C-alpha cells in the first residue's frame, strides 16, 4: 500500500537531464522548474508528513513561499515547457492548499490516497450500518410529522418542543462524531510517528472511514431541523 515503496524516488529534469528527487520543484542541478510529472501527493508536495494534525500558519507559509516561486510572472520569458510547468505547479499547489487547509477535506484526501475511499456508490452504500439507517429514517419521519403538525396549525410551543426533542439525540451524535474524528486522527498521527506497520495503520484508517459514512446523515438532519426552526 505505502506508495513510497513502489514509486520512483527520482525524476529526470527535462532541461538538463539530471536527476532530481521526486518531490523537488526545481532541478537541483540546473535550478530550472521541473515539469509536474510523477510526484507524490499534496502532503509531500508541500513538504509535509502524511499527518492529520497540521499547523495552519505553517501550511499557509509553505503555500505562500511556493506560490511565489511558481508564479507565472517569473516565467514570462522562459521556455514553453517551463511556463507550462509553472502553471501546472501553481494550480496543483492551489488544490493542495485548499484541500489540506480544511480538516475534513484533509481526512477525506488521506483516505483517498491510502486507497480507502469507496470505489463506487454501491460499495459505499453497503458499508452504512443498518442501525444508522433506521435511526436516520425514523428521525426523517419525525421531521415530516412535525411539519404536518405545523401545517395543521399547532402552536409554536408544541412543534418547537418536538423539534427540540428530535434535535437532541442527533446533536449528541454530532458531538460524539466530531470527537471520534479527532481521536482517530490523533491515533493515525501517532502511528505515523511510530512508523507503525501496515495492519495498524489500516485499522486506524478504516475506523476513520466508517465515521465518515455517518457524517452527511448527521449534517443533513441537523440542517433540516435548522431550516424548520428558521422558516
Amino acid at each position, binding site marked *: 500500500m505505502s506508495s513510497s515503496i513502489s514509486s520512483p524516488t527520482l525524476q529526470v529534469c527535462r532541461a538538463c537531464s539530471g536527476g532530481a528527487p521526486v518531490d523537488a520543484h526545481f532541478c537541483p542541478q540546473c535550478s530550472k522548474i521541473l515539469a509536474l510529472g510523477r510526484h507524490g501527493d499534496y502532503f509531500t508536495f508541500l513538504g509535509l508528513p502524511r499527518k492529520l494534525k497540521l499547523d495552519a500558519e505553517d501550511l499557509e507559509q509553505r503555500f505562500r513561499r511556493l506560490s511565489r516561486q511558481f508564479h507565472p510572472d517569473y516565467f514570462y520569458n522562459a521556455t514553453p515547457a517551463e511556463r507550462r510547468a509553472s502553471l501546472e505547479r501553481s494550480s496543483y499547489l492551489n488544490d493542495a492548499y485548499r484541500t489540506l487547509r480544511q480538516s475534513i477535506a484533509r481526512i477525506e484526501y488521506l483516505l483517498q490516497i491510502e486507497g480507502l475511499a*469507496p470505489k463506487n*456508490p*454501491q460499495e*459505499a*452504500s*453497503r*458499508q*452504512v450500518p*443498518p442501525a*444508522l*439507517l*433506521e435511526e*436516520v*429514517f425514523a428521525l*426523517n*419521519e419525525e421531521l415530516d410529522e412535525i411539519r404536518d403538525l405545523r401545517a395543521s396549525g399547532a402552536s409554536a410551543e408544541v412543534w418547537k418542543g418536538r423539534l427540540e426533542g428530535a434535535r437532541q439525540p442527533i446533536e449528541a451524535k454530532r458531538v460524539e462524531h466530531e470527537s471520534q474524528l479527532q481521536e482517530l486522527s490523533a491515533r493515525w498521527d501517532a502511528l505515523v510517528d511510530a512508523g507503525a506497520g501496515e495492519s495498524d495503520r489500516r485499522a486506524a484508517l478504516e475506523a476513520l472511514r466508517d465515521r*465518515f*459514512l*455517518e*457524517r*452527511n*446523515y*448527521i*449534517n*443533513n*438532519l441537523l440542517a433540516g431541523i435548522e431550516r424548520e426552526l428558521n422558516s
Partner: protein
Amino acid sequence: MAYSNKVIDHYENPRNVGSLPKDDVNVGTGLVGAPECGDVMKLQVKVNPATGVIDDAKFKTFGCGSAIASSSLATEWLKGKTVDEAMAIKNTDIVNELSLPPVKIHCSVLAEDAIKAAIADYKKKQGVERSAEKAAQPTA
C-alpha cells in the same frame, strides 16, 4: 440542474408512497442509504405467496428528486412482476427511463439496491418461516 419531465412527474406525483406492515411474512423491506449525500430510501414489496408475484409495492425516500423519482418508478415496475423478474431490474433501466444525468446515477443505484434488499428480506422471512413450520410439525 435540469430534471427530465419524467423525473419531475414522479417527483410531483410520486406513486405508491407509504409503507406496508413490516412484520408481515409476505412483505420484504429494503432500507438503504447513500453516504455521499446522506439520503435514505425505504422500499417494500408484498408478494402473493400463492403465485410468487409482487402485488403491492411502496416506498418512502428522504432524498433528492432523482432518488424519489427512481424509487417511485421502481415501485411501479415491481407490481405484477415475479420475485425473479424484480431481481433483474437494473439501475441502468431506471437511468434510461428517467434520462438521469451522470451525476445522478448513484440515485438510481440506490433504487436498485433497495429492490434487492427488499427481495432479500422477503426471501429471508420466507426461509425462516418455512423452517419454522418444519420445526413445528413434529411436535404437532
